[in-house]
């Protein structure tokens, strides 16, 4: 089951409302995925700045003093905003990798959720309404975003098992369906040096795409490769710096993208909109 919602704004005047619109869509999808929820939201970039979101199982202990620790290690100014179990660090863009290393060295219990100039990922266990409230999703502005509500089938209900999964700078993946060859693909990727946090099948798909792109493939080619190498039922949505892409498996008998009109019913202008479904085994992109 699971629910995927995505919103790519073409009308800039709606950008302040992105979080609020996505929240309505996400909450509507609660009965497709009441276990956990997550969002990747893409804000307007600030020149020379980057964002890092970090998650902690013990935020009271991990977050105080973290900005100072990273700032000292990097020798530059770092700001930190705590949002429930997550913290958003903002820092100079050229120090992003160093900042992540410094943060994880200072607080070994932290998990890096996302890194990039625009992306922020927040995800937690619980009802989508509660997760959205804890992170203040409704107040976030941005150009595009992806949300996921999870009904777990392949692995435990944990924060790290929730979607979206980061696949690289300013990139993330959400998935509806289940993969049947994820264990063998995970073993191959581990041999190539990829690290895994969970037993989750989607994390394998995320690592698969990351590994391909690290080897020089484009996002489109990496998505095409999922059609050949990954077995199972899937609809993938990949968020990128400038938009998002969608691909459905060749059989495409899993739920279609765009099948839940309920989640679209609250959007401005939906009465006049044309709603359509992607073809199987075809990669689609919406980008600026």
């Amino acid at each position, binding site marked *: 089951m699971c629910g995927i919602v995505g919103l790519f704004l073409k009308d800039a005047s709606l950008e302040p409302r992105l979080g609020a619109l996505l929240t309505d869509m996400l909450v509507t999808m609660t009965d497709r995925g009441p276990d956990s929820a997550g969002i990747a939201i893409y804000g307007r970039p600030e020149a020379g700045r980057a964002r890092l979101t970090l998650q902690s199982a013990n935020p009271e202990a991990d977050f105080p003093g973290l900005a100072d620790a990273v700032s000292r290690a990097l020798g530059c100014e770092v700001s930190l905003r705590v949002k429930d179990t997550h913290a958003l660090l903002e820092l100079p863009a050229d120090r992003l990798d160093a900042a992540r290393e410094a943060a994880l060295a200072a607080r070994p219990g932290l998990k890096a959720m996302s890194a990039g100039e625009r992306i922020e990922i927040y995800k937690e266990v619980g009802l989508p309404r509660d997760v959205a409230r804890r992170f203040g999703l409704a107040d976030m502005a941005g150009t595009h975003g992806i949300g996921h509500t999870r009904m777990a089938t392949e692995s435990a209900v944990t924060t790290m098992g929730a979607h979206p999964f980061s696949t690289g700078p300013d990139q993330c993946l959400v998935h509806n369906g289940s993969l049947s060859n994820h264990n063998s693909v995970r073993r191959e990727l581990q041999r190539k040096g990829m690290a895994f946090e969970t037993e989750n099948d989607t994390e394998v798909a995320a690592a698969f795409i990351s590994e391909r792109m690290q080897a020089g493939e484009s996002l489109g080619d990496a998505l095409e490769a999922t059609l050949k190498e990954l077995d199972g039922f899937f609809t993938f949505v990949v968020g990128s710096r400038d938009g998002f892409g969608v691909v459905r498996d060749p059989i495409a*008998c899993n739920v*279609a993208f765009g*099948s*839940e009109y*309920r989640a679209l*019913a609250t959007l401005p202008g939906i009465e006049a909109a044309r*709603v359509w*479904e992607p073809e199987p085994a075809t990669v689609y992109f919406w980008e600026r």
Partner: protein
Amino acid sequence: METFDLAAAPLRSLNAALHSLKGQETNRTEWEVLNPRGAHAVAAGVDAPVEIRVRGSTGYYCGGMNKQATIRIEGSAGPGVAENMMSGAVIIEGDASQYAGATGRGGLLVVKGSAASRCGISMKGIDIVVHGDIGHMSAFMAQSGRLVVLGDAGEALGDSLYEALIFVRGSVKSLGADCVEKEMRPEHLEMLEDLLRRGEAEGTARPEEFRRYGSARRLYTFSIDNASSY
């Protein structure tokens, strides 16, 4: 006219009211449903000769298992619209999502826009008229009934077909296993004329513009020579 606003009352009370009409002598024969907003199972399981107008788009399984009722959706319909319909009619002014009319045993399903994948999958007697296109794997394992498409058909049309009849006016991306083009005989033209009229497509298309597809009957009666095709 009975008006039911789904923004003001829950779906279950609508469906309970419609179900209570079964076997009753009633003059409550005209119904209007406001604010469906993609709700699932709107007017599913109705068994009464009533007319229901849904003012907007519906979610999964609208008009499922319908008997006798005429349900008109003034918007688009989500997956599984009119699934397993027994009789009556479901008319969609917009588009239909996946598996429209799946396993339908009777009645008429009309889609004024296009239908997505698996339209008429395993249909067993329903008639379906689609004014636009249909998606991949439509009429998969269709057993009986008629599927009429004024536009184009997607991949693997009529795969593993039994005795349903398929008429397509536009192009067919590919035919599924054991589905072949067949000769259009006078009785088929007559049949099409009737279906186009009842499907509100009279004047939009003429019977002679269509091609007929059906089962080659090489697959569904098991033959050891076909083992590799199963």
